[in-house]
């Protein structure tokens, strides 16, 4: 059986950063269902935050101010110590990335350039034009190549095996080889990314199904704050490709069908640069009021920025508009609508990225530390993935240095692999049944219709009922093609099972949280309620179904106050 000290699942920023943070004397492997450079991190556009204070007129920015903005932006649901840790680590992290080759854009004095982003008191978002995720992912991958990290590219992890609340191994489907393979590891880090594609409209890559989160949950790891789903205000109408917040950071306007910069009616001070939850709701409200175009979208207008600035600062955005919408933002406004964008909640871990299951760690978008609370600020998630990825690599190494003996478990791991093979076989032998790709499309509709920007008890309950119907249908699922190499039916079949768990936990968490906070907006409870709800939702799986509990959060030096922008 394949054996490692540490297996990292995910080749995005969090996974690669974990690999680089791990003790190099350990036997480490990185497993990813796509080649690491195809991970969703590559699509991030706008930038990464750190209080470098590089802009001459903003020299008094500090990591404390960054932490305060993060906590306020989170609608006070972030753990304040963790947010402070994130912001302190930000500065050395950026300089290290720079030293590793990240080609950040520069200011005229040769220092790393910074731009304004929503919800931030200072321009502290570092960037490389609008291709920041791309350059960061390539840079970390390059460093991993330099250090000869072992990669298992195009392997889909299907199960984790936990015995006596301790992790013992994994099962994976090797797509190119067409085989199901058991692997042993003394520790595992999940860096499997978000679940965007559980929603019909999402900015995420097609592969972001969120199976990793559901897999951990099935194995008994609790999930935290899953009801907090970020909807990005500006995504290209119809395709939902992200139009980065940097477009507004650089000065873009939001305009409704009446030609009005409507943000004036919602956040007159911050205007277009209020935090995402607020801007997304404002746009949706305009559309619902009949002030949108075709009842579907509003305009993001960049024309006044001028050709040169658009070409220099937002070339990727312009490219996307030309190729995917057939319009040039230099000459025409961009039709935009909100769409699912980011998962604030995730696998329940502490600030060392450890979960309640011994030897099982998580980092990046699949995890919830929590630093983003109820709403993440733009530019903080690339940062979180890299900083906490690194911390996960370090903590797992520390844990392994403590020398946990091999827990046994060869037998369970092999058995789990055999059971999966048998199940696939039996599904394959069916003569007919449900097409899993169509089930997936149905699930997306359910989630978008019932757990979107605006929620209430009745629709959330309907969501749970419709999910139960899909669960029934999934029992009759069937595979048409051969179950050998590159069988994408098998991939989605496995992920879908885990996705249903994720969907249930989101719906349930949202139904139980009877208040409005950050991205979670309940039309039947439209106020934030600190007296009852300043706490994290923790959902754990039991034989009888999900068990919902709450954990008080660590309020540090910043007492919750009303968010005004």
């Amino acid at each position, binding site marked *: 059986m394949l054996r490692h000290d540490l297996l990292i699942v995910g080749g995005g920023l969090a996974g690669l950063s974990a690999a680089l943070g791990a003790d190099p004397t350990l036997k480490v492997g990185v497993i990813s269902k796509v080649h690491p450079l195809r991970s*969703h991190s590559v699509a991030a556009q706008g930038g990464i935050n750190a209080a470098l204070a590089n802009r001459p007129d903003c020299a008094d920015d500090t990591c404390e101010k960054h932490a305060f903005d993060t906590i306020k932006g989170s609608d006070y649901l972030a753990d304040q110590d963790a947010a402070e840790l994130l912001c302190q680590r930000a500065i050395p992290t*950026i300089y290290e990335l720079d*030293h*590793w080759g990240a080609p950040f854009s520069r200011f005229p004095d040769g220092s790393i350039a910074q731009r304004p982003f929503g919800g931030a008191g200072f321009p502290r978002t570092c960037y490389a034009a609008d291709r920041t995720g791309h350059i960061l992912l390539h840079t970390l991958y390059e460093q991993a190549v330099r250090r000869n990290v072992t990669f298992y590219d195009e392997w889909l992890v299907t199960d984790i095996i936990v015995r006596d609340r301790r992790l013992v191994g994994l099962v994976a489907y090797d797509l*190119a080889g067409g085989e199901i393979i058991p692997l042993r590891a003394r520790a595992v880090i999940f860096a499997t990314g978000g679940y965007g594609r559980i929603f019909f409209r999402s900015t995420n*890559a097609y592969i972001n199904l969120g199976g990793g989160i559901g897999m951990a949950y099935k194995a008994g790891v609790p999930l935290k704050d899953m009801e907090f789903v970020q909807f990005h205000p500006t995504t290209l109408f119809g*395709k939902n*490709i992200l139009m980065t917040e940097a477009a507004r950071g650089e000065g873009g306007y939001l305009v409704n069908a009446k030609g009005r910069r409507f943000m004036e009616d919602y956040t007159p001070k911050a205007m277009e640069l209020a935090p995402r939850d607020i801007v997304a709701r404002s746009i949706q409200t305009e559309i619902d009021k009949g002030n949108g175009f075709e009842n579907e979208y509003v305009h993001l207008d960049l024309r006044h920025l001028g050709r040169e600035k658009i070409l220099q600062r937002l070339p990727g955005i312009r490219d996307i508009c030309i190729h995917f919408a*057939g319009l040039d933002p230099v000459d025409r406004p961009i039709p935009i609508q909100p769409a699912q964008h980011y998962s604030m909640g995730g696998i329940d871990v502490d600030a060392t990225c450890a979960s309640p299951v011994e030897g099982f760690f998580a980092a990046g978008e699949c995890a919830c530390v929590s630093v983003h609370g109820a709403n993440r600020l733009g530019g903080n998630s690339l940062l979180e993935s890299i900083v906490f990825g690194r911390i996960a690599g370090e903590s797992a190494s520390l844990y392994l240095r403590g020398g946990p003996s091999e827990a046994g478990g060869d037998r369970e791991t092999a058995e789990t692999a055999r059971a999966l093979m048998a199940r696939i076989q039996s599904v394959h032998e069916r003569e007919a049944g449900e097409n899993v790709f169509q089930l997936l499309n149905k699930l997306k509709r359910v989630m978008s219709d019932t757990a979107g920007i605006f929620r209430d008890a009745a629709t959330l309950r309907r969501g749970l009922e419709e999910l139960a119907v899909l669960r029934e249908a999934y029992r009759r699922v069937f595979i048409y093609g051969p179950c050998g190499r590159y069988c994408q039916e098998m991939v989605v079949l496995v992920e879908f099972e885990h996705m249903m768990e994720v969907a249930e936990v989101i719906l349930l968490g949202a139904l139980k949280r009877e208040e409005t906070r950050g991205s979670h907006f309940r039309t039947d409870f439209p106020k934030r309620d600190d007296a009852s709800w300043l706490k994290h939702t923790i959902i754990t799986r039991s034989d009888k179904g999900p068990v919902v509990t709450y954990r008080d959060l660590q309020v540090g030096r910043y007492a919750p106050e009303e968010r005004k922008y």
Partner: protein
Amino acid sequence: MTFKILRFDAQKDNRPYFQVYRHVPKPHETVLEALKDIRDQQDPSLSFRYSCREAVCGSCGMVINGRICLACRTQVGDLGANEVVIEPLPNLEIQKDLIVDLKPFWDAYRKVEPFLQAPGDVPEKGHVVAEKDMEKVFQYITCILCACCYSACPVATRDGRYVGPAALAKLYRFTLDPRDRRPFSALERVDGPDGVWGCDTVFRCNDICPKDVRPADGIEGLRRKIIAGKTKRLFRRKP
């Protein structure tokens, strides 16, 4: 509309064959969206790579109506044809349907030492790099390693040892970077027919690149640097 898609499964087929599907694309539908619709509604066994659907991850290079391109950035309507013929990337072995084995491509990538070599510790306030110098590398860092250029390259067709345009452009990107201090010997590694001198300068890579990287500019640049480096060395040897 008809979609004629190349199918092949090394585990059961002796040779590739075309399968024909009928599908009515929506307005502005991309070829990748069409492939997904065909798979979801007609034939779940169809295999192809995809991820970002916005031309940044490099997964979906293929041949569409004879032209190498990214499926996610090609609109069906723009093809101006009633039939869409889709084949896997050439110059690489087919693994299943539209999925090819990229091992030779990644091997070439690794061969050029594709990472910044900046000596010493992390500078306390970061490296100081002139705005203009940083922007010089931007042409090359837009590369998404989709292998379209490698597939289009006639030299790579002829000679499997040739490292190809993407890897050479990557190396050039680092030599342009003021923070990089790799020794001249790192360039000599591509100073041969498997490297920069293999290029036929027919610029197929520049024509085909979906991200306007113009890899051949990088190959040209490397040639100049190598010649300059050797000349310098020659003069140094003379008294």
